[in-house]
């Protein structure tokens, strides 16, 4: 299949890459950019492990084709935090015990981040709605919701 050239902003940097047009964004990020924080759990947009932020929206990167992000902005967990400091969300996930096996964690963080960027003071129900597409089999969700709530800036 003939490759296409795409350019987009990835974790704040402008990047250009040639890719087969049928490559999933998930594979593009993991293989071409070695961003292995983006996990595959189901490959059909059900589990949320591969969540990234695409133009300020949390999306499952397994259901996005690479050329669709041409001229867009993509953020993965590698793009959270600044100058070696953890993002407040990352800090609270650690403190509140919201991390167990860790496989859903990057997707969970990004769904939460996308929510807080749009709505800096969400209610507990709004938090639950924001992460409803991210499955976790270890925590039972309570500590994840607690962590997101604790990260809300005063």
């Amino acid at each position: 299949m003939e490759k296409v050239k795409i350019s987009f902003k990835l974790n704040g940097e402008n990047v250009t890459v040639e890719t087969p047009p049928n490559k999933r964004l998930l594979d593009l990020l993991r293989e071409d950019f070695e961003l292995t924080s983006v996990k595959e759990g189901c490959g059909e947009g059900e589990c949320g492990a591969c969540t990234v932020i695409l133009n300020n929206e949390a999306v499952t990167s397994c259901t996005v084709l690479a050329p669709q992000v041409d001229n867009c902005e993509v953020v993965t967990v590698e793009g959270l935090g600044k100058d070696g400091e953890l993002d407040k969300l990352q800090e609270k996930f650690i403190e509140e015990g919201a991390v167990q096996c860790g496989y859903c964690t990057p997707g969970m963080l990004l769904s939460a981040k996308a929510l807080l960027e749009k709505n800096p003071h969400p209610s507990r129900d709004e938090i639950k709605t924001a992460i409803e597409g991210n499955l976790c089999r270890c925590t039972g969700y309570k500590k994840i919701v607690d962590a997101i709530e604790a990260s809300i800036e005063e």
Partner: protein
Amino acid sequence: MKEFNVIGKNVIKKDAVDKVLGKAKFAADMKLPNMLVAGVKRSEVPSGKVININAEKAKKVPGVVSVLTYKDIPGENIIGIINKDEPILVEDKIRRIGDAIAIVAAEDESTLEKALELIEVEIEETQGVFTIEDALKEDSPKVHGDTNILAEKILKRGDVDAAFKKCDVIVENEYSTPVIAHMFIEPEATLANYEEGIITFYSSTQNPHYDRGEVARMLGITLNRVRSVQATTGGGFGGKLDISTQCHTALLAFYTNRPIKMVRSREESMKVSSKRHPHYMKFKTGATKDGKILATDVELLQDTGAYGSYGLAVITRSMVHAQGPYEIPNVRIRAKMVYTNNPMSGAMRGFGVPQVAIGHEGQMDALAEKLGIDPVEIRTKNCFQTGSVTATGQKLVDSIGIYETIKKAADKAEQIMDKEGK
């Protein structure tokens, strides 16, 4: 109260920082130079006989490096955590949908997919057994050997039959629990490498020491030539105790002398990972009119599917817990675990204990209703106390918290539920 360093403290998980940064390496995240990707050709029928495997077309696809079948296994072709009954690659008999028939290593995913499609497997489909009832019939097709019963056990305390005659009320009920998948969020994966006579593999696993033994026996080499490393593992819940991708990747690495990575799709994982044992249970429980339980008689039928896995542990644990956390002087538990052509059942959070809880707790509610007493009261009246003796004759001397737990749960429930009990 005494101050401890860890107990009572909020301790930060030592790998939490790597995990929030996305730096923790799961098996699928690892790679080595010159690495190949690998996959499995699986049976699409639950019961059958393999007549012929033809991999010639697959081997000719450019980019296919190795195609292996059972004939290529240098050591033993049989695995299993407790009883060894599962072939690494099927020799002749198909026992479930998803049985592994051939494995392929290729330069990339699309070549791998093409090669797997091109492997021709001729299978004569045979009648399978899919219910415990059918599996126990004398003339049923046999999944292994000459009986479908993997294990049959009896546990007795006191004289159940005599005790039932002294009971004022007796409740008899049947219960069943379904197949359940663990659905760990990370599908199984292994990266294997064979170098200087040592096979090293990094897996998503709960059982690296067991994996090591199975790989050594499969290759017919000594344990000191096998390194089994647990990669960061994305959930298991018992479902990553069995061999998944370890043997297949190790065998391909052994033959190709190149690193091999195999990652299951969710569909493949769902098809062949172990499941919670479905249970069919008959409970007969008798009590005096003031709610003291005198006897319980339990019959358990358990479906282990195509292979034993942790079944022999599950039958024992389900039996020793079937009386529940209640002191009962007369107990009889009879259990049978049977093979069928269903998905393999194995370890899953509780090893049969959650299944029998559906039964013994159902019985407590039924007794309370029949006696017209409070469901909490019948539980606190009968629950284990310090000094209680279980059906296996064990005297409980320490950490018997069930009475307090029930009381606190009831208090909490009262606080949060409205008057109608909603």
